[in-house]
């Protein structure tokens, strides 16, 4: 089983998808000769040609809008939005068009478009390059949203997103692009269903739900908690729409305590949705209120202070302390 970085795993997923189906094509800014600003598409234009790996004009609404048109002609376009904060020019196309076409055509039309968005902070970047806008899209019916936390998932989520008949947004945790791990290119194994959450660490006393870039942070927090004698389970959500509430609920029923962590601002974030659902499904199992750890209600801060904004091990441990205080 090869070991590769998360970025390379996505690259391999895109290459294999292009090779498997001639209707698959990529479109985005600088994805051709440069291979994308994060080199995720490196080598693909040389291998598959400019008709299938398209350096688009610098226009996000155009990338998504033309991808919709291509999908109506039978293609399976994969659009790259260069950075999270630049998706908003395409927000109209994604929410009013892409998400709704299947429904408004009563199922006659499918728009199997994949949109890749590098997201999240922690890399010391400039304004608009560190955001986590996933809740805005999870709120929109008609879209599916995936976010890998490790190279194996990154490969298979890329493949699954492209094969899915629904539009899928893949939020790629950019600060984990260089995270290495084994990738089974032959078989997805337990990743066969991209919409299932994974219990990535078993525990008995509390559950941390995290996704994307915060999964390694949650695992490290659980490790630190273990040193204090607390057995903490970690759930990698993997899919943000749909959310696998069965796995989350089962974990909470076992542990009785839940901390949800994401980089996105807490207010109106997915943590609130998870807290509400868990309180409905597992109210009598809860030993404490669901505690959320996330960004503050402010624009993403300048990078010199992003360490105080982003949930880290200590903030998750502090949240666990609060949960255990009940």
């Amino acid at each position, binding site marked *: 089983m090869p070991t590769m970085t998360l970025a390379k795993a996505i690259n391999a997923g895109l290459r294999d998808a292009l090779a498997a189906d*001639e209707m698959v*094509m990529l479109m985005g800014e600088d994805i051709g000769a440069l291979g994308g600003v994060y080199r995720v598409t490196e080598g693909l234009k040389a291998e598959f040609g400019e*008709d299938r790996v398209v350096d*688009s*004009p610098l*226009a996000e*609404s*155009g990338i*998504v*809008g*033309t*991808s*919709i*048109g*291509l*999908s*109506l*002609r*039978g*293609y399976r*376009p994969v659009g790259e939005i260069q950075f999270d904060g630049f998706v908003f*020019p395409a927000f*109209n*196309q994604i929410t*009013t*068009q892409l998400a*709704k*076409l*299947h*429904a*408004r*055509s*009563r*199922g*006659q*039309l*499918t728009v*199997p478009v994949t949109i890749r968005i590098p997201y999240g902070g922690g890399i010391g970047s400039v304004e608009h390059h560190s955001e986590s806008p996933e809740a805005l899209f999870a709120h929109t*019916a*008609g879209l*599916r949203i995936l976010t890998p936390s490790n190279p194996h998932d990154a490969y298979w989520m890329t493949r699954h997103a492209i094969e*899915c*008949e*629904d539009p899928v947004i893949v939020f790629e945790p950019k600060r984990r692009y260089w995270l290495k791990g084994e990738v089974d290119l032959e078989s997805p194994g337990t990743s066969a269903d991209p*919409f299932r959450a994974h219990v990535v660490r078993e525990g008995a006393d509390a559950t941390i739900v995290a996704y994307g870039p915060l999964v390694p942070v949650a695992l490290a927090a659980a490790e630190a908690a273990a040193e204090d004698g607390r057995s903490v389970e970690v759930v990698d959500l993997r899919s943000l*729409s*749909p*959310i*696998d*509430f*069965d796995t989350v609920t089962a974990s909470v029923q076992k542990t009785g305590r839940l901390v949800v962590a994401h980089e996105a601002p807490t207010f109106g974030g997915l943590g609130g949705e998870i807290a509400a659902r868990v309180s409905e499904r597992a109210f009598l199992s809860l030993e404490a209120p669901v505690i959320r750890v996330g960004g503050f209600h402010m624009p993403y801060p300048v990078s010199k202070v992003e360490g105080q904004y982003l949930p880290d091990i200590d903030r998750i441990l502090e949240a666990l302390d609060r949960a255990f205080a009940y």
Partner: protein
Amino acid sequence: MAGDLPTTEFDDIPEELLYELEALAHERTEGHVNMVQLLDEEGRFLNRSHFAERASALSVDELRALYRDMAMIRRFDAEATALQRQGQLSLWVPVRGQEAAQIGSGRATLPQDYIFPTYREHGVALTRGVELGELLRQFRGVSNGGWDPRQNNFHLYTLVLAAQVPHAVGYAMGLQRDASRAAAAGRAAPDPAAVVAYFGDGASSEGDIHESMVFAASFKAPVVFFCQNNQWAISVPTQVQSRIPLHNRAKGYGFPGLRVDGNDVLAVHAVTEWALERARSGKGPVLIEAYTYRQGAHTTADDPTKYRLTAEEESWLAKDPITRFEKFLRAEGHADEAFFAEVAAEGEALAAKSRRDVLAFEAPSLAAEMQNVYAERHPLVDEELAWHLEYQAGFADADTDSVEGGH
């Protein structure tokens, strides 16, 4: 003259047409609009344009069919307006005045072409063979679409202004790839096809129009941008959208643009046919600005008396596309009283059928709508659907009124 145009992009255009296009680009006298026109307001044929020979090539049957289509859509439009006034439709978007722009352009398309309409292209829908009653479903509140877009290559109406235009360009990029894939695989080339993207003078200000034109130009996509400038974006005149004639914008993107008299069905047909042939042969996009007038309200919820003068409306009535074409057909001896009577009777039948269709529409179940949100199973939808069905089932023993109240 031609030096003003990036001629290397337009090598395929004959010199006399290039001259005509360039002449069209300049407003010479106040109040005079330069545009391709083959019929004057009295319906007299003008043989002064490069496009005249295309109109001359139409058979009498084809000419009569153009009239018939325009008359049909006007009658249908009147019926739909009446249905709204009678409370049978929640809203209607009248097309009166724009029949020539829509029938002329729609009849220039081939079956393999694909059309992306706005929400007012009732005339184009007719030319594509869409059952007109289906257009009314949206306005009756029983569907957000109504017809199968794949059957007639006529996409669903799009209500978000200009949002369908990048779809059109993407579809055209798909056509290009179909051709190159066929060539690579040694398969027979598909019939050359093109896409028509409809939008209006108001939508021309939307960013999606700009992005679409950039993509289309850069990739030489086989798409015709068909802008119906009906002078008013609800209450805002075209001058607020553009300080230059809209078709002149094409030059900035590097493809030809021209203005046609949108109330002259022969001119619209000829110009669109030319643009489509050009697009199908791989020479890239064209912007057509059809200069026309929305004789009625923007929608049945609008009140044009608040923002425009009766004198303006009357001046445009004198340019009415159907009256003008009727004069032409009569003067040329292409149609007699019997023909017009026959068309009128056919219009009445269409109106009656459309009314029957509307009254017979059944509302879908919310449950069925929920099941169409995703193409593949989605657990949240399944869960909410199950809850909804169970909740509704709780009313099973109640009387009919309370079941309806539960929706």
